[in-house]
């Protein structure tokens, strides 16, 4: 059996581990257009602010490929997939055959056309290690920075650049920050917190025109900068799968074994795919690392012939900005229980006798996983002491039978 994996991040690594849980002999070839040993993309902001070294950014130990008997082709781009011939074409023109293919190419920054952007010499995305290495070369103490996009990526960049005492302006077309994970109240709290660190926000605004070192905004203001961070959004990498005849609807469509719809022996995982969100009963792109790993892991097991299914995906985020932490999961459509005190905020959302989502900020985040498991398992609220749980997540609030099963036996799987 020959496995080819495209992508060297969480989905690709999850696939390697999944394959090797089932098949220790098959040949694995992993191809990535980045030249690096597998590293953690979300750590780039920590690298830029000096909180983690490049050596410590590796996602798996240096002997990972060797121990798992994986051949790698790093710094090599795949240009085409022929699903009928079961081959992939490389940028060198070389053609490589496979029995099973795993596609985990992730996403790329989405940069909308902006007038005069070609005039700006120093503009950067904030996705890859090479992006922050390039920023490192131009950033100076007190650099003036314009960040376009007040989402997770733009604000992680802002946090890192605070380390350089950067003078930052963040603009966004939306009327609030972090709309993908926070509600209005949470956004307000985080915005005030980040503003207190000296970052300026201009919302409901975009760039009308770029000059080499300034931007005229649609609200009439002009912002001077030394460099620009472009963090408007990301777009799933789907073109190779689409060209090969696979089903794509914004993201790559797969079944619950991660097999790509419309193709045989081709699997996909990670930010390039669509997931079924069990908390909202809807399909969406869940571009989060745990999801990518678990999808890839499932794909790997299935490629190697095991029965495995990934069917409890949902939005989940744990992230901090300038020392204020957020943990969120699920959907926010339902009745709310709210606690709010300064930067500390808790919102639990219930619907149909279950917890379907939550937002926790500041000192409300401890033991959040107890809530996450209730969302994932659709725990009936009338089977627990929810009045106790609302205030503090605790195993005490579950039935003795649940605790005996989960804590007292030898069984320690967590589904």
């Amino acid at each position, binding site marked *: 059996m020959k496995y080819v994996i495209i992508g060297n991040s969480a989905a690709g690594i999850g696939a390697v581990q999944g394959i090797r849980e089932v098949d220790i002999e098959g040949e694995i070839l992993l191809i990535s257009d980045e030249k690096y040993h597998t590293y953690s993309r979300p*750590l780039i902001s920590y690298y830029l602010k000096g*909180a983690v070294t490049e050596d410590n950014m590796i996602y798996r130990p240096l002997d990972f490929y060797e121990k798992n008997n994986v051949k790698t082709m790093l710094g090599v781009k795949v240009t085409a997939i022929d699903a009928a011939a079961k081959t992939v074409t490389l940028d060198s023109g070389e053609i490589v055959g496979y029995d099973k293919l795993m596609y985990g190419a992730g996403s790329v920054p989405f940069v909308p056309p902006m007038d005069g952007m070609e005039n700006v010499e120093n503009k950067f995305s904030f996705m890859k290690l090479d992006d922050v290495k390039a920023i490192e070369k131009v950033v100076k103490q007190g650099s003036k920075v314009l960040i376009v996009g007040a989402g997770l990526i733009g604000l992680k960049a802002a946090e890192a650049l605070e380390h350089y005492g950067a003078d930052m302006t963040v603009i966004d077309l939306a009327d609030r920050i972090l709309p993908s994970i926070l509600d209005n109240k949470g956004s307000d709290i985080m915005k005030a917190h980040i503003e207190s660190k000296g970052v300026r926000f201009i919302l409901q605004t975009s760039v009308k025109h770029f000059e080499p070192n300034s931007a005229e905004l649609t609200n009439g203001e002009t912002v001077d900068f030394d460099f620009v961070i472009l963090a408007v959004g990301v777009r799933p990498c789907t073109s190779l799968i689409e060209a090969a005849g696979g089903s794509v609807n914004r993201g790559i469509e797969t079944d619950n074994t991660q097999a790509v719809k419309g193709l045989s022996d081709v699997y996909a995982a990670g930010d390039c795919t669509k997931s079924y969100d069990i908390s909202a009963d809807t399909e969406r792109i869940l571009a989060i*690392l745990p999801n990518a790993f678990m999808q890839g892991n499932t794909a790997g097991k299935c490629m190697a012939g095991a029965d495995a299914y990934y069917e409890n995906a949902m939005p989940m985020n744990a992230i901090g900005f300038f020392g204020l932490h957020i943990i969120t999961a699920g959907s926010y459509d339902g009745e709310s229980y709210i606690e709010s005190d300064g930067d500390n905020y808790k919102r639990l959302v219930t619907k149909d006798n279950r917890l379907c989502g939550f937002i926790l900020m500041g000192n409300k985040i401890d033991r*959040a996983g107890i809530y*996450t498991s209730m969302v994932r398992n659709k725990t009936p609220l009338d089977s627990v002491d929810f009045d106790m749980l609302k205030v503090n997540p605790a195993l005490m609030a579950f039935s003795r039978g649940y605790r005996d099963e989960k*804590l007292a036996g*030898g069984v320690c799987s967590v589904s």
Partner: protein
Amino acid sequence: MKRVYVNEDWCLGCHLCEFYCGFANSGETDMAKAYKLDRAAAPRIRVEEGDGINFAVQCRHCTDPLCVKGCIAGALSKTKDGVIEINTDKCVGCYTCVLSCPYGCIVIDPKNNGRTITKCELCTRNSAGEPACAANCPNRAIVFEERGEA
């Protein structure tokens, strides 16, 4: 594998397990000194107390650990003996593991202002020899034993 189990009928809620945990991971040889000089580690075991019920919980060292699968930094890993370890040089304190652990057993480490997490490693990386919580439980409510995998 051997794990730590708690019999909640016998747990007195005395919190000694928390103190012994903090001492075992302090690097000190004298418990009174460890606490007096504020060198004790944050306990990785936690006693829950309720109406006539008490029990201690700590990492279950799951066979299929969501914390390891979800860790964005590759800082959590499972040893060949099944112990889930944290590499604090790699941990960036994002708390994805806090979000993931169904038992609420990941500890945001107050000893370094939450810059990393800490967790039970079954006393495999300190000098205690075997889990200090079990060895020092006065009512033998906490045991360290093999019960078999499912």
